[in-house]
């Protein structure tokens, strides 16, 4: 297992290096550079100003030379400066990463917990009176556009009932936990409702297949309780495909949810990555996207290792 993990970590390092080059080049090949964008905001900027600023920001250098310069500094621990946020990359990124982990993590675990309950309930009695509504709920969640769902929740709970704030992460000038949590409710609810359907369908399918296996019938014949059959015997095999899906979802924890963040004016990673890419903020976009890449790959490695625990037949080579 140690050898397997070491090889995978080397693969991850190589992939991250290749990804860093590809992301840098792709952003660089997009039309317009940061100074062109500045000129749109200030039409009085002269050609001399444009040329001067391109030198100041290092944009007069060839793309590959700029990438090598970035890589050299990054390997020395300096991830550079974000032009859009007027701050070192880490300073711009960390608060938003925290916000995203809070938002995405809360909705992820909430959706997962609910999906496990609903998926197992539906799988135990397929096509029953319970399975139908659960399926309907799942498809509704998957089908509803996130921006629409967000808007409906804002209109009902913020505008109509006035129970919850409509946007932001906190009320200006306050630092209370209650205030912070109240700002989380609607975005978390939006993301949970949007993702719960997909997770439930995976859990239902995996559990349904697990419950049909021979060892489950044997366990029941030996007189095991239904709870033990579900939680000890069926769940373990059902979790293998679900683990794969969850591992893939982990990248989302750090890459954020653009639509939800935009609708709730929630400063998270999704909006940060979008703004950084659109604003040609190379340093910030690169680090944020690489962070999402690394998280996804590490989560997949963790999932691979978890397979061995969930199914002793799995071996690492």
């Amino acid at each position, binding site marked *: 297992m140690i050898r397997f993990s070491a090889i995978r970590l080397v693969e991850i390092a190589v992939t991250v290096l290749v990804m860093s080059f590809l992301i840098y080049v792709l952003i660089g090949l*997009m*039309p*317009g*550079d940061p100074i*062109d*964008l*500045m*000129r*749109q*905001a*200030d*039409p*009085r*900027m*002269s*050609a*001399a*100003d*444009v*040329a*001067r*600023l391109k*030198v*100041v*920001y290092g944009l007069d250098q060839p793309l590959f030379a700029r990438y090598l310069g970035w890589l050299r500094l990054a390997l020395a621990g300096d991830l550079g400066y974000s*032009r*859009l*946020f*007027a*701050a*070192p990359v880490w300073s*711009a990124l960390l*608060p*938003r990463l925290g916000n995203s982990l809070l938002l995405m993590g809360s909705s992820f675990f909430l959706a997962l917990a609910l999906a496990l309950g609903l998926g197992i309930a539906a799988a135990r009695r397929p096509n029953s009176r319970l399975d139908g509504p659960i399926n309907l709920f799942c498809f509704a969640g998957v089908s509803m556009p996130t*921006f629409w769902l*967000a*808007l409906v929740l*804002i*209109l009902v709970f*913020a*505008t109509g009932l*006035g129970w919850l*704030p*409509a*946007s*932001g*992460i*906190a009320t*200006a*000038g306050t630092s209370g936990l209650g205030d912070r949590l109240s700002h989380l409710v609607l975005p978390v609810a939006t993301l949970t409702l949007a993702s719960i359907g997909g997770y439930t369908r995976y859990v239902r399918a995996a559990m349904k297949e697990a419950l049909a296996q021979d060892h489950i019938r044997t366990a029941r014949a030996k007189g095991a309780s239904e709870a033990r059959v579900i939680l000890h015997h069926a769940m373990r095999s059902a979790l293998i495909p679900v683990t794969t899906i969850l591992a893939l979802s982990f990248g989302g924890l750090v890459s954020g949810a653009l639509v939800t963040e*935009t*609708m*709730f*004016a*929630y*400063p998270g990673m999704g*909006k*940060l990555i979008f703004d950084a890419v*659109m604003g*040609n903020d190379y340093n910030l976009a690169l680090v944020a996207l690489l962070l999402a890449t690394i998280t996804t790959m590490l989560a997949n490695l963790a999932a691979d290792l978890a397979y061995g625990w969930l199914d002793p037949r799995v071996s690492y080579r």
Partner: protein
Amino acid sequence: MGQRGSRRLPALAIALLLSSPAFGDERDSLTIGITQFPSTLNPNIDAMAAKSYVLGMALRPFTVYDADWQLICLLCVTLPSIENGLAVPVDLADGKKGIDITYTIRPEANWGDGAPVTTDDVLFTYEVGRDPKSAVGNAEFYRRITGIDVKDEKTFTLHVDKLTFDYAAINDFVLLPAHIERAAFADPAQYRVRTLYNTEPTNPGLYNGPYRVSEVAAGSYVLLEPNPHWAGSPGHFRRITVRAIENTAALEANLLSGTIDMVAGELGLSLDEALAFEKRHGDAFRMIYQPGLVYEHIDLNLDRPALADRRVREALILGLDREAISKSLFAGRQKVADSFVHPLDAGYSADTPRYQYDPARAATLLDATGWQVGPGGIRRNAAGQTLSLELMTTAGNRTRELVEQVLQSQWRKLGVDIRIKNEPARVLFGETVPHRRFDMAMYAWISAPENVPRSILHSSEVPDAANGFAGQNAAGFNSPEMDRLIDALEIELDPRKRKALWADAQRLYATELPSLPLFFRSDVFILPKWLSGVRPTGNQYPTTLWITDWTVQP
């Protein structure tokens, strides 16, 4: 259980009612919604409307144009003029005319930490602006100043290398606090990174306006509180929050829920969104429609053979019913433009040719240029080529896309085939327009009162490889007469003669039609009924510069 719940409801309602601003609260705080968040608060790096909006409350420029589009002093005591002797034309060594202009900083002007605003700040700001490594965006103003003489702590004289009619306007000269910023400028190349406006934006010493920034939640909001060392009339509000909500549907919902009190016109809803909002909720708010200096137009690429003929350009504008578009899409709130000069501008001339909708004359002109109606109703020339043009605008801009569809339909009736090809703003402005890879491009120019149109109409500003595609005369308009008028306009001091030059420039523009004038965009301010004193300017200077006039009416 149900009974207990029903008992709680009235109590909850009363609590909510009492917590609403109408009861008990003295309305000493104001929350403003805008659609953008400023990337930096340094006044001289990276021009951004959101930054100007926030800094309008916290920093005083020397001079600005007010709501009557008159140049006024904000940080200076007296506006210099040749008549009052504070501006003195001088002969330069190269035979040209320059000017020496003397300003005095208001004696009571202080930074938020109590330090006085002095000529030391003037010299430091000049030093930053002049340094090519300092990342100051528009450095033209600093390049034109050849030197500064300091008379005392409050009075200084600028030596400017060109005598222009707007010599007294030093609107771009926003002072930096030397006493705390100088250390960040030790290495000019690192200034944009180390400026305290980025590293310590709540330092009170950075602000000299009626308010100072007291909290910044990046990407979310900026909180402002009164500057204790402000000596002018104080602002009414104890706290002002400027909250960024980019999605306009969410912005509306926030307004309705009371999370924000108002939507700024400078960075708020588009006109069509505001009109729809007014229909649904207009009774609950005060809506102000302010026509402004944002000039929506269609640049025509004059290098395209069909568009090189002036008569075709005239036919295109005669074939447009712009009044009907304004009425049907914008309830008549978006003023039809005759040229690039706004009717409120001092340079506006009513003698400018106007083009009313006249499809018959448009058809005659096209016939005369050899574009005859062919099969399918599309015009063709003698070589069999169809009169087919590509119309581009910024993809995702709903208002422009709506207008675009009407234009396509109206021109189709004339026999002109319009193919719509929209691109994201960064592609359109980053690549297509600067490289002049378009037939017709619909977008806006942002200007200032009495803004000489050098960058958009002078032949030296046609973007090409020589100027790094940095010029803004994307139509490729090359008129010696317009060049002469622009050169003369800049240096003509006599208002009467300048007015005549402005009239000539507008007449030439409206006759030659390098671009088709469409509308002057309106900003829509959505204000609570209890707020008074907000006076939209219609120019690039935000309403927040006059924040101390904003009050609560009983």
